[in-house]
């Protein structure tokens, strides 16, 4: 360790390698067999269970928990994968506290839901660790489908199409598949290269090939894909980022939180990653939380998250907020950035307090300066490079039904498509459902 949390500016190696390793280890260590049985035992096997309804992919949660309880985690995994082939990743990254576990009747009864996410991980890990792929591919149909984007939506779509016997070609702009699973999720939520391993495991179904470094609009075109394939699925996510529109945004030390997170996820050596002594994160979603928490875990001395509305309006869940607070992140609510101060290099962020009258937000005129040598922007992502001809709705590709776009033979799902929350699990559901629709149109 050459530096410390109080080393001025942006610097690497603020913490000992051992501390870094501990900080970025599994947030929830996996349940062992006994813990899984104890957790599974709490499930009431509810009828028409609220947890199933709350799951965007509709996993039969009571059934898989009962299968764990009766000593067949392999059968449990199959129950999960039938609905959600990325059940392993979702077990790690789903905001279960706002989905299945919030709906769990034991949450209502005792404020302590069944540990559905961790039980899902227990089951899926059992099968994935054994390297077993639980499904077989139907005979080749001779149909070929192009999938743009190897994120959760594209992977789920590709897998389901391959299962039905179609040949799938995935194109992804990045060097690795996985999308945000690989590049956009906090390090401690998916450790040990899980995202990469999951893609490899998923592709064992056969019939899927992946071309990396191929971006839509740059290396391939929608027109070209439509001409060459029987159907096209677009799941390229939101590659653009919103601008701060504050003066001084171009000063050194100002960066996009998504890039910060991606760099962290791809880092071979956490000690080599530079982070500010005083970090300010702007935004209120999961990306903001992940960037703030990880800045702190990398050894930043002070991390402040500035959000323009109040706590209740924050998109990040209470659980995520508490996690950030427990790591030492400071929250400033009802404040918006005005200007990045500094001379070439950012030294502070000038903010103005806000007030809200229902929908619109206005400044109160009262300002304050936050010292900062690193400012991370997490104020939302945008669709980047949409092909002509696709109808857009609310900044996303407009879809109806199971992901049908305005262009014949083209489906879309995941973050780039309209509707649904921008969650891994939602993307999986949309990809899967679009695949079923594509399949019906190809064989119908």
């Amino acid at each position, binding site marked *: 360790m050459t530096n410390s949390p109080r080393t001025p500016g942006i610097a690497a190696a603020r913490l000992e390698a051992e501390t870094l390793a501990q900080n970025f280890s599994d947030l929830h260590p996996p349940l062992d*067999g*006994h813990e899984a*049985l104890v957790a599974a*035992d*709490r499930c009431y*096997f509810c*009828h028409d269970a609220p947890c199933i309804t709350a799951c965007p992919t509709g996993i039969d949660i*009571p*059934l898989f928990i*009962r*299968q764990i*309880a*009766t*000593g*067949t985690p*392999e*059968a449990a995994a*199959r*129950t999960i994968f039938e609905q959600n082939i990325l059940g392993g990743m979702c077990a790690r990254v789903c905001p279960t506290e706002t989905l299945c576990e919030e709906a769990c009747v034991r949450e209502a009864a005792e404020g302590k839901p069944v540990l559905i996410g961790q039980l899902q991980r227990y089951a899926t890990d059992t099968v994935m660790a054994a390297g077993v792929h639980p499904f077989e591919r139907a005979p080749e149909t001779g149909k070929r489908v192009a999938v743009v984007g190897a994120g959760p939506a594209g992977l789920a779509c590709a897998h389901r199409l391959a299962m039905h016997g179609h040949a799938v070609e995935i194109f992804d702009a990045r060097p690795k598949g996985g999308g945000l699973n690989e590049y956009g999720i906090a390090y401690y939520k998916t450790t040990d290269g899980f995202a990469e391993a999951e893609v490899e495991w998923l592709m064992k179904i056969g019939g899927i090939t992946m071309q990396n470094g191929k971006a839509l609009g740059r290396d391939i075109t929608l027109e070209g894909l439509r001409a060459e394939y029987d159907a096209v699925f677009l799941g390229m996510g939101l590659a653009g980022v919103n601008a701060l529109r504050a003066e001084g945004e171009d000063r050194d030390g100002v960066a996009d939180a998504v890039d910060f997170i991606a760099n962290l996820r791809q880092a071979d050596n956490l000690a080599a990653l530079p982070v500010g002594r005083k970090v300010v994160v702007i935004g209120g979603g999961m990306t903001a939380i992940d960037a703030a928490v990880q800045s702190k875990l990398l050894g930043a001395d002070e991390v402040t998250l500035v959000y323009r509305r109040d706590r209740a309006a924050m998109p990040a869940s209470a659980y995520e907020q508490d996690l950030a607070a427990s790591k030492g992140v400071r929250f400033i609510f009802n404040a918006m950035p005005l200007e990045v101060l500094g001379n070439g290099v950012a030294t502070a962020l000038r903010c103005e307090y806000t007030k809200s009258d229902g929908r619109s937000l206005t400044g109160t005129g009262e300002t304050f300066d936050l010292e900062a040598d690193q400012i991370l922007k997490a104020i939302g992502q945008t669709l980047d490079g949409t092909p002509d001809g696709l109808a857009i709705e609310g900044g996303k590709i407009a879809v109806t039904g199971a992901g049908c776009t305005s262009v014949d033979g083209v489906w879309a799902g995941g973050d780039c498509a309209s509707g649904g929350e921008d969650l891994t699990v939602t993307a999986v559901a949309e990809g899967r459902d679009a695949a079923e629709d594509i399949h019906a149109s190809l064989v119908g």
Partner: protein
Amino acid sequence: MADLSSDFIGISSPNPFWLASAPPTDKEYNVRRAFEAGWGGVVWKTLGAEGLPVVNVNGPRYGAIYGADRRLLGLNNIELITDRDLYTNLEEIKRVKADYPDRAMIVSIMVPCEEAAWKAILPLVEDTGADGIELNFGCPHGMSERGMGAAVGQVPEYIEMVTRWCKQYYSRPVIVKLTPNIADIRKPAEAAHRGGADAVSLINTINSITSVNLDTMSPEPSIGGKGSHGGYCGPAVKPIAMSMVSEIARNAETRGLPISGIGGVTTWRDAAEFMALGAGNVQVCTAAMTYGFKIVEEMMSGLSQYLDEKGMSLDDLVGRAVPNVTDWQYLDLNYVTKARIDQDACIKCGRCYAACEDTSHQAISMSEDRVFEVIDAECVACNLCVNVCPVEDCITMEELAPGAMDERTGKPVSPEYANWTTHPNNPGAVKAAE
């Protein structure tokens, strides 16, 4: 996925999981739901003789025993046979069977112990197209007071007689359902066998009072301050049921007589255990009443996975454990084990110590800093410490290999098999050479 399709006494069903004759099978609506959920067959709730149907109490019919976290372990009921009209039931049975030809449809019957009564109802049941009948000789409450149910099941001569009538007046398979409220379960099974039964099913419910309200002094379930013994079922009765199944499976008089196993089957594992002990299939009631019909999905996936893992067919499983059920006198007295405590897994609760020190053989030591260790010189391998330990596999039993020193006896473990029949302490010991 293993093939779970089942052939029990010539009655085929897509899986060996049947719903027992009980409230879940009292009506067309329930049975259709059961078949849609995946159950392999049902035994329709017991039909009575033509005429005015029986009536039920209008207060609570069930009482329960709970484990930790209010897990239902035992259920007791004072419900009688169907309280719906005979012909309504018969029409429904016929309709459902016609719509689900691949599922097993068995009709449970209980009429007075008179030949005319059976002669009257059997052709009506035959006409439904059901696959077979089950004779309810088991219900311990209400009907037994009227000379039916368990009152018949407790008299082997009656069982034999009625079974003969059924074989005479009905052309399809006859299953005799046995009551456990009897000293020796082999006797009624033998009687059924003599009467020509195609199979026996067991157990029916056990006489029970689940609890007493200490304020009102009424047994539960309470009907206006009074209670009656009811029939006990659910996970709590499984060990009793499995013992009885195994007794019939290994009894020379009844060996080979098909058995439908009933009693606390809640998971695929319970079902597999019953089948290993000789049951050709199982019947389920309390688990369905507790969790709904959907549990059959876990039963199917679990049993299928187990059979695949073991490379067994369903038929291979049936009776596979029967040869290992024996009498105490034949257990190997030279099989020696010692308790072993995994210190890494131990959470230092001391329950093993309390159990052993207070109630067993003082074979566990406790140090100042709460380290618990087995004293081999005292350990008789009773297994109580294993049973009371809250951590699975923390305490295990280790077999001493032949030749190893047993610190308790001071003698090496003999490689020879030796049981009580030849033991020197046995006054009736038979010398091996004689």
